[in-house]
Protein backbone atom coordinates (compact mmCIF):
# COMPACT_ATOMS: atom_id res chain seq x y z
CA UNK A 1 0.00 0.00 0.00
CA UNK A 2 1.30 3.44 -0.92
CA UNK A 3 -0.11 6.90 -0.30
CA UNK A 4 0.94 10.06 -2.12
CA UNK A 5 0.28 13.68 -1.19
CA UNK A 6 -3.44 14.43 -1.14
CA UNK A 7 -4.52 10.79 -0.80
CA UNK A 8 -6.25 9.08 2.07
CA UNK A 9 -6.93 5.51 3.10
CA UNK A 10 -9.83 4.03 4.98
CA UNK A 11 -8.81 0.98 7.01
CA UNK A 12 -11.80 -1.31 7.51
CA UNK A 13 -12.32 -4.62 9.19
CA UNK A 14 -14.26 -6.41 11.90
CA UNK A 15 -13.59 -5.86 15.59
CA UNK A 16 -10.26 -7.46 16.36
CA UNK A 17 -9.17 -7.60 12.72
CA UNK A 18 -6.07 -5.59 13.58
CA UNK A 19 -6.96 -2.06 12.50
CA UNK A 20 -5.50 -0.44 15.60
CA UNK A 21 -2.43 -2.70 15.44
CA UNK A 22 -1.83 -1.61 11.85
CA UNK A 23 -2.14 2.05 12.79
CA UNK A 24 0.20 1.67 15.76
CA UNK A 25 2.75 0.05 13.48
CA UNK A 26 2.37 2.92 11.02
CA UNK A 27 3.02 5.36 13.84
CA UNK A 28 6.09 3.40 14.95
CA UNK A 29 4.70 2.48 18.37
CA UNK A 30 5.13 -1.24 17.64
CA UNK A 31 7.22 -3.19 15.18
CA UNK A 32 5.78 -5.32 12.36
CA UNK A 33 6.84 -8.99 12.21
CA UNK A 34 7.17 -8.81 8.46
CA UNK A 35 7.37 -5.99 5.97
CA UNK A 36 8.53 -2.44 6.30
CA UNK A 37 7.07 1.03 6.70
CA UNK A 38 8.73 3.81 4.76
CA UNK A 39 8.29 7.55 4.80
CA UNK A 40 9.78 9.60 1.94
CA UNK A 41 11.52 6.42 0.81
CA UNK A 42 13.27 5.80 4.13
CA UNK A 43 12.33 3.14 6.70
CA UNK A 44 10.72 4.94 9.64
CA UNK A 45 13.02 3.16 12.09
CA UNK A 46 15.99 5.00 10.63
CA UNK A 47 14.31 8.36 10.10
CA UNK A 48 12.36 8.41 13.35
CA UNK A 49 12.78 12.12 14.14
CA UNK A 50 11.70 13.20 10.65
CA UNK A 51 8.74 10.80 10.68
CA UNK A 52 7.54 11.96 14.07
CA UNK A 53 7.78 15.59 13.01
CA UNK A 54 5.52 14.90 10.02
CA UNK A 55 3.12 12.57 11.86
CA UNK A 56 0.04 13.20 13.92
CA UNK A 57 -1.33 10.08 15.60
CA UNK A 58 -4.60 10.12 17.51
CA UNK A 59 -5.33 6.84 19.24
CA UNK A 60 -8.28 5.44 21.17
CA UNK A 61 -7.27 7.26 24.31
CA UNK A 62 -8.00 10.92 24.47
CA UNK A 63 -4.59 12.07 25.79
CA UNK A 64 -6.51 14.85 27.55
CA UNK A 65 -5.60 15.85 31.09
CA UNK A 66 -8.72 16.22 33.25
CA UNK A 67 -7.00 18.82 35.42
CA UNK A 68 -6.23 21.11 32.49
CA UNK A 69 -8.56 23.36 30.53
CA UNK A 70 -8.87 22.72 26.77
CA UNK A 71 -6.47 25.58 26.04
CA UNK A 72 -3.89 24.25 28.48
CA UNK A 73 -4.27 20.78 27.01
CA UNK A 74 -3.54 22.05 23.52
CA UNK A 75 -0.62 24.15 24.68
CA UNK A 76 0.88 21.34 26.77
CA UNK A 77 0.65 18.90 23.85
CA UNK A 78 2.30 21.35 21.46
CA UNK A 79 5.00 22.25 23.96
CA UNK A 80 5.93 18.58 24.25
CA UNK A 81 6.54 18.61 20.51
CA UNK A 82 8.86 21.56 21.02
CA UNK A 83 6.51 23.98 19.24
CA UNK A 84 4.93 26.34 21.77
CA UNK A 85 1.41 27.52 20.91
CA UNK A 86 0.01 31.01 21.48
CA UNK A 87 -3.31 31.58 23.24
CA UNK A 88 -4.90 32.99 20.07
CA UNK A 89 -3.99 30.04 17.85
CA UNK A 90 -5.22 27.56 20.46
CA UNK A 91 -8.44 29.51 20.94
CA UNK A 92 -9.07 29.73 17.20
CA UNK A 93 -8.71 25.95 16.83
CA UNK A 94 -11.08 25.34 19.75
CA UNK A 95 -13.69 27.74 18.35
CA UNK A 96 -13.50 26.01 14.97
CA UNK A 97 -14.18 22.72 16.72
CA UNK A 98 -17.24 24.20 18.42
CA UNK A 99 -15.83 24.62 21.92
CA UNK A 100 -16.40 28.35 22.21
CA UNK A 101 -17.08 29.29 25.83
CA UNK A 102 -15.66 26.00 27.12
CA UNK A 103 -12.01 26.92 26.78
CA UNK A 104 -11.48 27.77 30.46
CA UNK A 105 -13.37 24.84 31.99
CA UNK A 106 -11.36 21.93 33.36
CA UNK A 107 -11.57 19.03 30.92
CA UNK A 108 -13.11 16.72 33.54
CA UNK A 109 -16.45 18.55 33.28
CA UNK A 110 -16.54 18.14 29.50
CA UNK A 111 -18.53 15.34 27.88
CA UNK A 112 -16.84 12.51 25.98
CA UNK A 113 -17.71 14.17 22.68
CA UNK A 114 -16.34 17.53 23.80
CA UNK A 115 -13.08 15.93 24.93
CA UNK A 116 -12.87 14.32 21.54
CA UNK A 117 -13.32 17.78 19.98
CA UNK A 118 -10.37 19.10 22.01
CA UNK A 119 -8.32 16.30 20.51
CA UNK A 120 -9.51 17.22 17.03
CA UNK A 121 -8.53 20.84 17.65
CA UNK A 122 -5.02 19.48 18.04
CA UNK A 123 -5.17 18.37 14.41
CA UNK A 124 -5.54 22.02 13.45
CA UNK A 125 -2.72 23.29 15.65
CA UNK A 126 -0.16 20.62 14.86
CA UNK A 127 1.38 21.16 11.43
CA UNK A 128 1.77 17.51 10.43
CA UNK A 129 1.75 16.11 6.90
CA UNK A 130 0.39 12.68 7.77
CA UNK A 131 -2.62 12.14 9.97
CA UNK A 132 -3.12 8.66 11.39
CA UNK A 133 -6.50 8.68 13.11
CA UNK A 134 -7.94 5.73 15.00
CA UNK A 135 -11.75 5.95 15.11
CA UNK A 136 -11.84 9.77 14.94
CA UNK A 137 -15.65 9.84 14.68
CA UNK A 138 -16.31 8.08 18.00
CA UNK A 139 -18.62 10.02 20.34
CA UNK A 140 -19.08 12.88 17.86
CA UNK A 141 -22.48 14.27 16.89
CA UNK A 142 -23.63 14.68 13.27
CA UNK A 143 -22.37 18.25 12.93
CA UNK A 144 -18.96 17.41 14.37
CA UNK A 145 -18.65 14.46 11.98
CA UNK A 146 -19.30 16.85 9.08
CA UNK A 147 -16.84 19.40 10.48
CA UNK A 148 -14.18 16.75 10.90
CA UNK A 149 -14.75 15.53 7.34
CA UNK A 150 -14.26 19.13 6.21
CA UNK A 151 -11.04 19.49 8.21
CA UNK A 152 -9.61 16.25 6.80
CA UNK A 153 -10.69 17.35 3.30
CA UNK A 154 -8.85 20.68 3.69
CA UNK A 155 -5.81 18.83 4.91
CA UNK A 156 -5.84 16.62 1.82
CA UNK A 157 -6.26 19.52 -0.63
CA UNK A 158 -3.21 21.14 1.00
CA UNK A 159 -1.20 18.05 0.05
CA UNK A 160 -1.62 16.13 3.29
CA UNK A 161 -2.10 12.42 3.75
CA UNK A 162 -4.58 10.70 6.06
CA UNK A 163 -5.10 7.14 7.22
CA UNK A 164 -8.19 6.49 9.31
CA UNK A 165 -10.32 3.71 10.69
CA UNK A 166 -14.03 4.01 11.15
CA UNK A 167 -17.09 1.81 11.21
CA UNK A 168 -19.33 4.55 9.91
CA UNK A 169 -19.31 6.03 6.40
CA UNK A 170 -16.77 8.84 6.08
CA UNK A 171 -17.98 12.11 4.53
CA UNK A 172 -15.03 12.33 2.16
CA UNK A 173 -14.69 11.62 -1.56
CA UNK A 174 -12.18 9.20 -3.06
CA UNK A 175 -9.77 7.32 -0.89
CA UNK A 176 -8.28 3.84 -0.95
CA UNK A 177 -10.06 1.18 0.99
CA UNK A 178 -7.87 -1.23 2.94
CA UNK A 179 -9.70 -4.36 4.13
CA UNK A 180 -8.20 -6.43 6.92
Amino acid at each position, binding site marked *: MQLDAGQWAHVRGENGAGKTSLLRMLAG*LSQPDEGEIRWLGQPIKEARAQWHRDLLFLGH*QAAIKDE*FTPIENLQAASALDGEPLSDETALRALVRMGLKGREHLPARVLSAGQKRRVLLARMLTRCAKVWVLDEPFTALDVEAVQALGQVVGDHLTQGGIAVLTSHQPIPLAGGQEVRL
Partner: protein
Amino acid sequence: MSALVAIIRRDLLLAMRRKADVLTALFFFVIVTSLFPLGIGPEPTLLRKIAPGVLWVGALLATMLGLQRMFAADHADGTLEQMALSPQPLVLLVAGKNIAHWMVAGLPLVILAPLLGLQFDLDAESLGVLTLGLLIGTPVLSLIGSVGAALTLGVRGGGALLSLLVLPLYVPTLIFGAGAVHAHASGQGAGGHLSLLGALLALSLFFAPWATTAALRIALE
Protein backbone atom coordinates in the same frame (compact mmCIF):
# COMPACT_ATOMS: atom_id res chain seq x y z
CA MET B 1 15.60 22.47 25.50
CA SER B 2 12.24 24.24 25.27
CA ALA B 3 10.54 20.84 25.43
CA LEU B 4 12.44 20.03 28.65
CA VAL B 5 11.28 23.26 30.27
CA ALA B 6 7.76 22.69 28.91
CA ILE B 7 7.38 19.24 30.43
CA ILE B 8 8.75 20.40 33.79
CA ARG B 9 6.22 23.26 33.79
CA ARG B 10 3.43 20.92 32.74
CA ASP B 11 4.18 18.40 35.49
CA LEU B 12 4.52 21.12 38.14
CA LEU B 13 1.19 22.61 37.06
CA LEU B 14 -0.41 19.15 37.23
CA ALA B 15 1.03 18.68 40.71
CA MET B 16 -0.44 22.05 41.74
CA ARG B 17 -3.87 20.91 40.55
CA ARG B 18 -3.53 17.63 42.45
CA LYS B 19 -2.15 18.98 45.70
CA ALA B 20 -3.48 16.07 47.77
CA ASP B 21 -1.00 13.62 46.21
CA VAL B 22 1.98 15.78 47.04
CA LEU B 23 0.86 16.71 50.53
CA THR B 24 0.14 13.08 51.45
CA ALA B 25 3.76 12.07 50.90
CA LEU B 26 5.00 15.13 52.75
CA PHE B 27 2.79 14.57 55.80
CA PHE B 28 3.77 10.90 55.75
CA PHE B 29 7.42 11.98 56.06
CA VAL B 30 6.64 14.39 58.90
CA ILE B 31 4.53 11.89 60.85
CA VAL B 32 6.79 8.85 60.45
CA THR B 33 9.87 10.77 61.57
CA SER B 34 7.95 12.32 64.49
CA LEU B 35 6.72 8.94 65.75
CA PHE B 36 10.22 7.81 66.70
CA PRO B 37 11.06 10.52 69.28
CA LEU B 38 7.56 10.10 70.73
CA GLY B 39 7.89 6.33 70.94
CA ILE B 40 11.44 6.14 72.21
CA GLY B 41 11.16 8.90 74.80
CA PRO B 42 13.53 11.66 75.84
CA GLU B 43 16.94 10.04 75.59
CA PRO B 44 19.09 12.55 73.71
CA THR B 45 22.08 10.28 73.04
CA LEU B 46 19.96 7.49 71.57
CA LEU B 47 17.87 9.94 69.54
CA ARG B 48 20.96 11.65 68.15
CA LYS B 49 22.26 8.26 67.13
CA ILE B 50 19.17 7.07 65.28
CA ALA B 51 18.27 10.47 63.75
CA PRO B 52 20.05 10.17 60.38
CA GLY B 53 18.79 6.65 59.79
CA VAL B 54 15.20 7.48 60.69
CA LEU B 55 15.11 10.63 58.58
CA TRP B 56 16.66 8.87 55.59
CA VAL B 57 14.35 5.85 55.82
CA GLY B 58 11.43 8.29 56.13
CA ALA B 59 12.63 10.06 52.98
CA LEU B 60 12.95 6.75 51.08
CA LEU B 61 9.46 5.64 52.03
CA ALA B 62 7.91 9.05 51.32
CA THR B 63 9.50 9.00 47.85
CA MET B 64 8.15 5.47 47.27
CA LEU B 65 4.59 6.66 47.95
CA GLY B 66 4.38 8.83 44.85
CA LEU B 67 6.61 6.83 42.52
CA GLN B 68 3.91 4.75 40.90
CA ARG B 69 2.10 7.86 39.77
CA MET B 70 5.12 9.18 37.90
CA PHE B 71 4.02 7.62 34.59
CA ALA B 72 0.70 5.92 35.46
CA ALA B 73 -1.62 8.84 34.64
CA ASP B 74 0.17 9.66 31.40
CA HIS B 75 0.05 5.99 30.43
CA ALA B 76 -3.65 5.65 31.21
CA ASP B 77 -4.80 8.68 29.21
CA GLY B 78 -2.52 8.14 26.22
CA THR B 79 -0.22 11.12 26.81
CA LEU B 80 2.74 8.76 27.08
CA GLU B 81 2.05 7.53 23.53
CA GLN B 82 2.08 11.11 22.33
CA MET B 83 5.38 11.69 24.11
CA ALA B 84 6.89 8.64 22.41
CA LEU B 85 5.68 10.06 19.08
CA SER B 86 7.00 13.55 19.77
CA PRO B 87 9.76 14.83 17.47
CA GLN B 88 11.67 15.54 20.67
CA PRO B 89 13.77 12.64 22.01
CA LEU B 90 11.81 10.63 24.58
CA VAL B 91 14.83 10.55 26.88
CA LEU B 92 14.69 14.36 27.14
CA LEU B 93 11.02 14.24 28.15
CA VAL B 94 11.79 11.49 30.67
CA ALA B 95 14.57 13.61 32.15
CA GLY B 96 12.11 16.51 32.43
CA LYS B 97 9.61 14.31 34.24
CA ASN B 98 12.36 13.18 36.63
CA ILE B 99 13.33 16.76 37.41
CA ALA B 100 9.70 17.72 38.01
CA HIS B 101 9.22 14.65 40.23
CA TRP B 102 12.22 15.63 42.32
CA MET B 103 11.03 19.23 42.67
CA VAL B 104 7.65 17.98 43.90
CA ALA B 105 8.65 14.92 45.94
CA GLY B 106 12.31 15.40 46.85
CA LEU B 107 12.93 19.09 47.40
CA PRO B 108 10.23 19.56 50.09
CA LEU B 109 11.81 16.70 52.07
CA VAL B 110 15.18 18.45 51.92
CA ILE B 111 13.62 21.68 53.15
CA LEU B 112 11.72 19.98 55.98
CA ALA B 113 14.57 17.76 57.16
CA PRO B 114 16.45 20.34 59.30
CA LEU B 115 13.23 21.16 61.12
CA LEU B 116 12.45 17.52 61.79
CA GLY B 117 16.06 16.89 62.81
CA LEU B 118 15.56 19.25 65.75
CA GLN B 119 13.29 16.66 67.37
CA PHE B 120 16.31 14.37 67.58
CA ASP B 121 18.52 16.97 69.27
CA LEU B 122 20.92 17.18 66.32
CA ASP B 123 23.34 20.13 66.44
CA ALA B 124 23.45 22.73 63.69
CA GLU B 125 26.42 21.21 61.84
CA SER B 126 24.93 17.71 61.79
CA LEU B 127 21.69 19.20 60.49
CA GLY B 128 23.69 20.88 57.74
CA VAL B 129 25.36 17.61 56.73
CA LEU B 130 22.02 15.79 56.82
CA THR B 131 20.38 18.41 54.59
CA LEU B 132 23.29 18.48 52.16
CA GLY B 133 23.21 14.67 51.97
CA LEU B 134 19.48 14.73 51.24
CA LEU B 135 19.99 17.44 48.63
CA ILE B 136 22.43 15.19 46.75
CA GLY B 137 20.62 11.94 47.56
CA THR B 138 16.95 12.67 46.84
CA PRO B 139 17.53 13.19 43.07
CA VAL B 140 19.11 9.70 43.06
CA LEU B 141 15.92 8.36 44.65
CA SER B 142 13.78 9.98 41.94
CA LEU B 143 16.04 8.75 39.13
CA ILE B 144 16.27 5.12 40.31
CA GLY B 145 12.58 5.18 41.17
CA SER B 146 11.64 6.27 37.66
CA VAL B 147 13.28 3.13 36.22
CA GLY B 148 11.19 1.01 38.59
CA ALA B 149 8.04 2.99 37.84
CA ALA B 150 8.55 2.51 34.10
CA LEU B 151 9.25 -1.22 34.47
CA THR B 152 6.09 -1.84 36.52
CA LEU B 153 3.89 0.35 34.31
CA GLY B 154 0.56 -1.30 33.59
CA VAL B 155 1.30 -4.26 35.87
CA ARG B 156 -1.53 -5.23 38.20
CA GLY B 157 -0.45 -4.82 41.82
CA GLY B 158 2.51 -2.88 40.53
CA GLY B 159 2.85 -0.91 43.77
CA ALA B 160 4.13 -3.80 45.87
CA LEU B 161 6.35 -5.01 43.05
CA LEU B 162 7.75 -1.52 42.67
CA SER B 163 8.79 -1.40 46.35
CA LEU B 164 10.48 -4.81 46.07
CA LEU B 165 12.29 -3.66 42.96
CA VAL B 166 13.35 -0.20 44.03
CA LEU B 167 14.00 -0.33 47.79
CA PRO B 168 17.06 -2.64 47.49
CA LEU B 169 18.49 -0.25 44.93
CA TYR B 170 18.06 2.59 47.43
CA VAL B 171 20.40 0.86 49.93
CA PRO B 172 23.68 2.52 48.82
CA THR B 173 22.08 5.98 48.95
CA LEU B 174 20.74 5.23 52.43
CA ILE B 175 24.12 3.95 53.68
CA PHE B 176 26.15 6.90 52.42
CA GLY B 177 23.49 9.47 53.27
CA ALA B 178 23.01 8.38 56.87
CA GLY B 179 26.71 7.49 57.11
CA ALA B 180 27.69 11.06 56.29
CA VAL B 181 26.01 12.36 59.45
CA HIS B 182 27.54 9.59 61.60
CA ALA B 183 30.99 10.26 60.14
CA HIS B 184 30.63 13.94 60.86
CA ALA B 185 29.49 13.27 64.45
CA SER B 186 32.43 10.94 65.09
CA GLY B 187 34.87 13.56 63.84
CA GLN B 188 35.94 11.79 60.61
CA GLY B 189 34.37 14.42 58.41
CA ALA B 190 31.48 13.84 56.01
CA GLY B 191 33.44 14.59 52.83
CA GLY B 192 34.01 11.00 51.77
CA HIS B 193 30.41 9.94 52.16
CA LEU B 194 29.08 13.03 50.42
CA SER B 195 31.50 12.48 47.51
CA LEU B 196 30.25 8.92 47.15
CA LEU B 197 26.66 10.23 47.17
CA GLY B 198 27.71 12.66 44.45
CA ALA B 199 29.17 9.78 42.45
CA LEU B 200 25.88 7.89 42.81
CA LEU B 201 24.05 10.97 41.55
CA ALA B 202 26.36 11.29 38.53
CA LEU B 203 25.95 7.60 37.68
CA SER B 204 22.17 7.61 37.97
CA LEU B 205 21.89 10.92 36.08
CA PHE B 206 23.73 9.30 33.22
CA PHE B 207 22.08 5.87 33.13
CA ALA B 208 18.61 6.15 34.68
CA PRO B 209 16.89 8.26 31.96
CA TRP B 210 18.05 5.84 29.24
CA ALA B 211 16.92 2.81 31.23
CA THR B 212 13.57 4.47 31.92
CA THR B 213 13.12 5.31 28.24
CA ALA B 214 13.83 1.72 27.20
CA ALA B 215 11.37 0.42 29.79
CA LEU B 216 8.69 2.88 28.66
CA ARG B 217 9.06 1.79 25.03
CA ILE B 218 8.53 -1.83 26.10
CA ALA B 219 5.45 -0.83 28.13
CA LEU B 220 3.98 0.97 25.10
CA GLU B 221 4.36 -1.91 22.61
